[in-house]
């Protein structure tokens, strides 16, 4: 491992409307090392990587690879072809209906003869050679759709290697892998390292950083907080650098009295979730924690009538109720903050006022004319109460920042005066400051007697904010914890255990 840097990013700044996404960020890597980049959602990791790969244009700064400056406007393909700079995104992109070989040689298929026919033999040979590097033994003409997610990820690595990659960025590659697959992926990363490839590994899982990385760079609020040798740091130190304050401050958890049962679910089955039973009490924040595909999301979607349930009972205030649609859920006093704010939470092209009062249209529209005075009053009240930062109630919600958008989604449901508020990953894509504000709002709602079910895959969050939690794995409840017994290792172990058996 040489000591000189091969990749140097200097003073990169990027501004989005209302947000300084990156504030003079530096990053350096050496040949054959794994540099982990960690930070909370909204810390700027992904933006930095998108600038590095050419998907975003930086406002100012410089990127040098092996001493050569990469012009900022160089596109992703040219960066790969001319500089050996590749990126593997969280959402993988290949053509499912085509073969492994075709995917590997996408855009540069070998041709032969005067008719420029596709040279399948050459493709087959080259693919097999590539795969041999990683001890893989597939028929190159297997369709990609028949591979597992992990195998597809490896395919992506092969694609990069086949183009003589020098620096490879991997954006949370294990988010949809189970433990065994993660192990395999790490093996491949090791062999890439031995070939002298530099890996920039984006993650928010500290455990992976210690398993894999040589150095770690911490980002927060669009700034580089520090770079450390992995051998010389502890996870406690990294967490503190990530959140920038002690964890008790990050999660403003007040001790509040918890009332009697509001909602009970008995033997609910929905999608991959099987036989789920739990009860929710007045004024508590109840966490459903599990990895992707664990069944938490399916459970709440079944409860809300978004998905059809295949069995089980829902008991609200002591009475059995049937909820077949979100409309019925709303009538019963069950509200839902979905995880994908843009696709499911808001009508982006319309105003804050329209979005905020969308849940009250029936009530506001009684009589011949919609009560626009009330609409304005509601909007102004909640902009004030939630401290939504917006130029006016008529601002198009698309123009608001993620945190403010999320506040609109929460506010529109509080207007309906719900008994139960279900929040699916409520702080996704929200910057740290707004996160704390959302947690405070949640506390405030509990104080007003609303019960919250929070679905999340973020361990720190579920530990920080909930009173009680269920751990899901493989569609089943693996265990339950009370706040006083929270134990990060034990919870994670339970959540992962299920997926190992998959």
């Amino acid at each position, binding site marked *: 491992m040489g000591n000189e840097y091969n990749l140097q990013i200097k003073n990169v700044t990027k501004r989005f*409307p209302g947000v300084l996404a990156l504030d003079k960020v530096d990053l350096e890597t050496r040949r054959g090392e794994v540099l982990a980049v960690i930070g909370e959602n909204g810390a700027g990791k992904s933006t930095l990587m998108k600038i590095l790969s050419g998907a975003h244009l930086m406002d100012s700064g410089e990127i040098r690879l092996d001493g050569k400056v990469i012009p900022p406007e160089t596109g992703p393909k040219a960066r790969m072809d001319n500089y050996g700079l590749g990126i593997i995104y969280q959402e993988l992109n290949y053509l499912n209906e085509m073969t492994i070989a075709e995917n590997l040689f996408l855009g540069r298929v070998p041709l032969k003869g005067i008719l420029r026919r596709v040279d399948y033999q050459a493709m087959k040979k080259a693919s097999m050679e590539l795969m041999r590097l990683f001890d893989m033994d597939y028929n190159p003409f297997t369709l990609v759709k028949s591979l597992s997610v992990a195998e597809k990820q490896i395919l992506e690595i092969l694609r990069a290697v086949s183009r003589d990659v020098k620096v490879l960025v991997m954006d949370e590659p294990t988010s949809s892998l189970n433990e065994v697959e993660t192990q395999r992926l790490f093996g491949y990363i090791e062999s890439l390292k031995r070939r002298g490839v530099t890996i920039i590994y984006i993650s928010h899982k500290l455990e992976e950083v210690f398993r894999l990385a040589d150095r770690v760079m911490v980002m927060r609020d669009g700034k580089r907080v520090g770079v450390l040798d992995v051998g010389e740091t502890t996870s406690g130190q990294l967490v503190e650098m990530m959140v920038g304050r002690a964890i008790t401050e990050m999660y403003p958890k007040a001790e509040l009295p918890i009332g009697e049962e509001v909602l009970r679910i008995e033997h609910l089955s929905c999608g991959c979730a099987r036989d789920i039973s739990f009860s929710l009490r007045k004024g508590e924040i109840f966490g459903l924690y599990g990895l992707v595909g664990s069944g938490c999301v399916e459970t709440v979607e079944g409860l809300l009538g*978004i998905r059809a349930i295949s069995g089980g009972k829902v008991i609200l205030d002591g009475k059995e109720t049937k909820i077949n649609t979100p409309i019925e859920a709303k009538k019963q006093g069950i509200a839902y903050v979905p995880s994908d704010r843009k696709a499911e939470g808001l009508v982006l092209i319309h105003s804050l006022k*329209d979005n905020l009062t969308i*849940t009250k249209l029936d009530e506001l*529209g009684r009589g011949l004319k919609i009560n626009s005075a009330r609409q304005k009053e509601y909007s102004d009240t909640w902009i004030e109460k939630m401290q939504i930062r917006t*130029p006016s109630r008529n601002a198009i919600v*698309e123009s608001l920042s993620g945190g403010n958008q999320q506040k609109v989604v929460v506010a529109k449901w509080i207007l309906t005066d719900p008994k139960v508020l279900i929040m699916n990953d409520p702080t996704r894509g929200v910057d740290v400051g707004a996160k704390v504000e959302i947690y405070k709002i949640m506390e405030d709602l509990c104080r007003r007697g609303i019960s919250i079910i929070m679905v999340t895959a973020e361990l720190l969050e579920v530990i920080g904010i909930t009173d009680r939690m269920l751990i899901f794995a493989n569609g089943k409840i693996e265990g339950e914890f009370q706040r006083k017994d929270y134990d990060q290792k034990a919870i994670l172990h339970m959540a992962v255990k299920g997926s190992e058996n998959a």
Partner: protein
Amino acid sequence: MPSRILAMNERPKLFRSIMDLGNTLSLAIALFLLATVWALMSPYFLTLQNVMNVLMFASILAIRASGLTVSMILGGMDISQNSVGAVTALLCILFSTSGAPWWQVLILVVVLGLAMGFINATLVSVFKIAAIITTLGTMQIFRGTAWIIKDATVMVTDPVLLALGRGRMFGVVPYVTIIALVVLVIVWYLLNFTSFGRKVYMVGGNERASYLSGINANRVKFIAFLISGLTAGISGFLVACQVGAALPQSGAGSEMNTISAVILGGISLSGGKGKMSGTILGILILQTINNGLTLQSVNAYFQMVVSGGVLLIAVMIDVVRSGALRKQ
């Protein structure tokens, strides 16, 4: 994130509301300029007789376009409107010639429009077939039905109905224009001042988010297609009253005229956006173009070329202005 969205976001509110107004305003200016040019080229253009003629044709188109506006804000196009109109006109005029009094005929107009709208509405909101496919199917079914009902022209004989189609209040304003105004005002009011209207915009903007917010998106769509059918029936019937005869082929081949006008009026094909004022201006512009060309004795084929060209130029101006062509 595409740069276009960022660019829009960075604009202050005042600028944006001027842009919003700008669309209506620029259409109005276009109409004014057009009228000026025609007036200079033909002394006949600005006569009361001719202006009322333009209004008469525009009115009937505007009635069905108002229903189309609602369905298009929802993101669904109704291309069966002209067929619905033909069936309604044929059955109602047959009913009239069989001796039914005019007021019973008018009730039948409403019933038939709603009935065919009901079929579209059911297919779209219950069976979840895309609106354009649904109405492509029903367009042909209704058209065929019209030919099956009567393979010939049926003359309008009831003097009340003829007066409705051709007559003018105080000898000046065509009755159809008054009917159109009433319909337009009702739909405009529905869209802007009722919860149904707000729901149309919200569902059109993001159906999934609206549904998850407890809006019955299916019901909104259902009602929208009822309205679309009703306005189609009324306008088809009024065409017959105006022409003095119901024909099974009435409106065949000109399905896209209303759609062009609505798009010219600034509606977004992806839904969620659009205004009645735009639709009205869109129709007036297209009608004025055709009227002026007719006065210049330009033949009908050339008029089609011009109408299509105007639509494309208008949309092109819009694309360029929105900055969608700018690179990131």
